């Protein structure tokens, strides 16, 4: 977990990599009360967001959550119905796309089919009236960086998907924009290429120091790439934070379910022994211990959640009585190679998902279908969620 706040009078240096923690840092991109309506439909509710220089920021959400509309407003393709957008201190709300210091990489790549790779990349520089020799040099350099130098004379349809993606990236980067917007940058690539390209993107972003804003529906992609993630739903941002924060401290059940998998127990809070709280869940026989830091009241309805990988499974009863432990029977198991996913029905009826790494090549004590097992976890690893 990141430190909650630095000591009073702390200098900016301690926040060098995480300017969002510094209360005095000036945001590079400031989105204030931005909304967008199409007729009666509200695509973006009212979004406030500060993004800092050099961030690789992800807008994450399902389809129709407004993430693409927000990105298009940053690019200048849509005019906000309300609110303002400031980039590097300049108000951009009403500036047309062709005058913004922002470039975009389209989901479809939008390469001009009638121009070859070099002309595609050079287009933006030509429109800016850059001298010919300079254009040739910069186009050459950027194509070198994306390893496409020898493909300069090819047309887009003569390239593979991965090569097209790199041309689109080069074209958007060659003008050295203050902000690069990426709409589902890896969406059209196959899995292996996607993983490889992810790291390339991060490397390039690090080299050039340009602020990246990525729109994606892929939570894994957002987790690996980003400095911070904004989770969007129905036109609003429901949580902003570093990947680990969004994963380990999701604010609502929706976010917890959207990013990874989580087991949830519904029930009522009651006082337990030693001043802690318990959750009485009708579908679990024993009361569940709530984490100590939870903000709850006696008798309140609540949702206790625990990630599958934070549960330990064993055939014998765990000795440590600080652990929350439950008994159950293995319903299903799925072998994934590096890990296995188990679905266990605990006494009382609730089904709990557990993932465990496959540590042994040949495990004689392997847990199998219909085995009786103990599930245990440290109460502080569980969460109380808002619905």
């Amino acid at each position, binding site marked *: 977990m990141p430190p909650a706040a630095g000591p009073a009078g702390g200098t900016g240096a301690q926040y060098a990599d995480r300017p969002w923690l510094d209360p005095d840092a000036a945001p590079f991109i400031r989105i204030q009360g931005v909304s967008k309506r199409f007729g009666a439909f509200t695509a973006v509710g009212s979004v406030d967001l500060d993004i800092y220089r050099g961030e690789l920021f992800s807008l994450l959400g399902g389809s129709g959550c407004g993430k693409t509309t927000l990105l298009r407003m940053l*690019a*200048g393709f849509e005019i906000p119905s309300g609110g303002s957008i400031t980039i590097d201190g300049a108000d951009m709300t009403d500036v047309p*796309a*062709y005058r913004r210091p922002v470039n*975009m990489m389209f989901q479809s790549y939008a390469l001009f089919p*009638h121009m070859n790779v070099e002309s595609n990349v050079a*287009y933006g520089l030509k429109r800016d009236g850059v001298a010919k020799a300079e254009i040739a040099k910069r186009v050459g350099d950027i194509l070198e960086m994306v390893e496409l130098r020898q493909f300069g004379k090819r047309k887009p349809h003569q390239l593979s998907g991965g090569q097209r993606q790199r041309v689109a990236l080069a074209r*958007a980067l060659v003008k050295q924009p203050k902000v690069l917007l990426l709409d589902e940058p890896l969406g059209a690539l196959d899995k292996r290429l996607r993983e490889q390209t992810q790291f390339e993107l991060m490397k390039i972003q690090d080299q050039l120091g340009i602020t990246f804003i990525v729109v994606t529906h892929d939570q894994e992609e957002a987790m690996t790439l980003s400095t911070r993630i904004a989770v969007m739903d129905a036109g609003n941002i429901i949580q902003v934070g570093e990947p680990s924060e969004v994963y380990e401290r999701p604010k609502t059940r929706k976010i917890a379910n959207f990013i990874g998998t989580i087991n949830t127990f519904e029930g009522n809070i009651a006082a337990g022994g030693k001043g802690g709280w318990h959750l009485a869940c009708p579908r679990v026989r024993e009361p569940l211990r709530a984490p100590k830091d939870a903000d709850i009241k006696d008798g309140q309805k609540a949702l206790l959640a625990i990630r599958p990988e934070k549960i330990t499974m064993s055939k014998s009863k765990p000795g440590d009585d600080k652990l929350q432990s439950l008994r159950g029977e293995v319903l299903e198991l799925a072998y994934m190679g590096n890990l296995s996913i188990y679905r266990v029905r605990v006494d009382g009826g609730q089904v709990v998902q557990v993932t465990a790494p496959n540590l042994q090549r040949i495990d004689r004590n392997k847990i199998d279908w219909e085995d009786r097992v103990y599930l245990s976890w440290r109460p502080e690893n569980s969460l109380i969620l808002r619905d």
Partner: protein
Amino acid sequence: MKKRSTFLFSALCFGMAFLYIPMVLLVVYSFNHSRLVPVWGGFSLRWYKSLFTSEEIWNSLLLSLQIAVVNATFATLLGTFAGLTIARFGRFRGRTLFTGMLSAPLVMPEVITGLSLLLLFITLNELLGWPSSRGMTTITIAHITFSLAYVAVIVQSRLSGMAQDLEEAAQDLGGKPLRVMFDITLPLLAPGMLAGWLLAFTLSLDDLVIASFVSGPGANTLPMLIYSRVRLGLRPDINALATIIIFTVAVGVALAGWLLLRQRKQRERDMRMASA
């Protein structure tokens, strides 16, 4: 291989016969020596000879071609603007009405179009003294008014199939809207515009009804000439003319098909090369 159905095969033969026997007859009789069309008088090229020496036919062919070229060019220009506006201008008041009105000439009976244009030209003549006489100019204007609608529809459908993100990408890279139109939209639209031009050209070359309404003395387009001659009785030299037209069209279509095929094969080769 599966045995082919006799029924389907005979249906195909019947259909083909239905389509092509009239044309074959026409071609055969164009080589008939006899002056009487239905009487076979032996093989001869005399009607082709008489065709090539007929000044009247050459004049009307030239007139038709002139009208067709001017018409196609103007209709493509105006139709492209109309199509662009409707596909890209966004929503404006009366857009649906305009879209509907633009395609109305496609379904309007030609007789009505011809009659209304004739009335317009007469009224204009009364009020402004122009056009003082009807002929090539009035036919051209009349043709532009209806072929424009065809071009607009073609351009519009090509634009709506063309992803708008190409234009957005160009704007994003710093192209002002007008610049983007010349750099991106029009080059990508060129095949559609060419198709529109060719369609307008053939529509004009083909038109008899509207031209008859708005033409004046001395201005006979080719279809008008053929029609007026046939009304006086079947003439073998017209068969010869028709044969030449059929062969020109057939060669044109075959050539276009071959070019398209070659282009597609090239594209497939490129794709294979790219993924290799």
